[in-house]
């Protein structure tokens, strides 16, 4: 009982000291009989006393030890780190894509090489790359590009007496084709530069019915095709051309 009274007295003294410190801190001058001090002390007393009875849920929590959330903190920081890495990788990939797109837009050779690489990959996956070239005897290492010395349409094609006209890609200049381009000069009307894929009208002198595309030979991308004729080979007898490459356009 005496201890409780002493404790209350100490608490009241601490409260008075606290109120006086608050008033001096705020620059408000007070005297001991100032009603403001007594009001503030009474106001501070509303925050003292006994704790209210806990609700059933809170009483259950008061009985159990509190959880330790320290184990969750490192995992949260780890997830933030992973998120940062993912975001940085995404940004890097986007910037690389923009750079590649810019290079492809400005450099035709780059675009050509990327297309060639892509067709090689697709051909190796689907297994159609060698099937489409084997009849022509095209060296896979050269890719059958126009102007390659290893590719000679006049010597590899199984046609006899047929003038083979290599395809002139629209983007290529005729002078860059080398020996294949010189064979174009044998039949100038069929190989107009920039119009290699144009088909003559039926009945015209340069018209040759094209061979239907073989179903077993998937189309070869233009970048890897051998210098086949966009304007097909001219057969004087009117028979369909036997140039296998003509069907791959």
């Amino acid at each position, binding site marked *: 009982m005496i201890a409780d009274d002493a404790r209350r007295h100490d608490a009241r003294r601490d409260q008075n000291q*606290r109120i006086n410190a*608050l008033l001096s801190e*705020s620059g408000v001058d007070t005297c001991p009989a100032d009603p403001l001090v007594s*009001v503030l002390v*009474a*106001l501070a007393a509303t*925050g003292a006393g006994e704790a209210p009875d806990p609700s059933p849920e809170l009483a259950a929590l008061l009985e159990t030890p509190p959880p330790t*959330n320290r184990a969750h903190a490192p995992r949260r920081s780890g997830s933030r780190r992973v998120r940062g890495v993912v975001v940085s990788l995404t940004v890097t990939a986007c910037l690389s894509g923009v750079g590649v797109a810019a290079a492809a837009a400005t450099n035709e050779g780059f675009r050509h090489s990327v297309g060639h690489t892509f067709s090689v990959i697709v051909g190796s996956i689907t297994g159609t790359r060698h099937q489409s070239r084997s009849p022509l005897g095209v060296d896979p290492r050269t890719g059958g590009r126009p102007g390659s010395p290893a590719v000679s349409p006049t010597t590899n094609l199984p046609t006899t007496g047929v003038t083979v006209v290599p395809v002139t890609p629209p983007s290529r200049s005729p002078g860059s084709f080398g020996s294949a381009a010189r064979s174009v000069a044998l039949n100038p009307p069929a190989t107009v530069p920039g119009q290699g894929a144009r088909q003559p009208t039926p009945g015209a002198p340069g018209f040759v019915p094209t061979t239907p595309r073989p179903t077993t030979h998937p189309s070869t991308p233009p970048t890897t095709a051998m210098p086949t004729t966009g304007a097909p080979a001219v057969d004087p007898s009117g028979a369909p051309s036997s140039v296998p490459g003509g069907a791959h356009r």
Partner: protein
Amino acid sequence: MVFSEAYREFAPAVVGYLRARGVPDPEAVTHDVFMAVYPRIGSLTGGRAGLKTLLFTIAHARIVDHHRRLTRAPRLVEYDPETEPRVAPSSEEVALARGTGILALLDELSPDQREVIALRVVADLSLEQTATITNRSTGAVKQLQRRALLALRGRLESQPLEAEQEGTR
């Protein structure tokens, strides 16, 4: 600090703070505040002062929620004691009336001043803790409490008898 010990030590101040801010059921909101603190008490830093700051930060947020709800809820009719047929007050009414008179002084203050005085005087928080909870600078808090104390003094000078009666009760 053990959770039950924290409840015994800080729950009265939380109840008094909520009551000073006009929350209708301060005990229930105090329970809510401590149940919100319970999952965090294991990872709490700052010791006793940190726990106290967290408690009153949550209580402050509950008060803000309460006042936001009031703006959307229909306005309640104020209790009129003249229409009350009972004439003998109960002990609870006497106890409540004692606090209501002092707390009525706070109604003379602006909401920001009332908030600062409740945190500094009722909740017994330091200047820095009050600044953290109210999201203000310590200079702003000090200025608010100075104006609030001067306003309280002016109110007491205008009505000295009531104030002294409330203060001496």
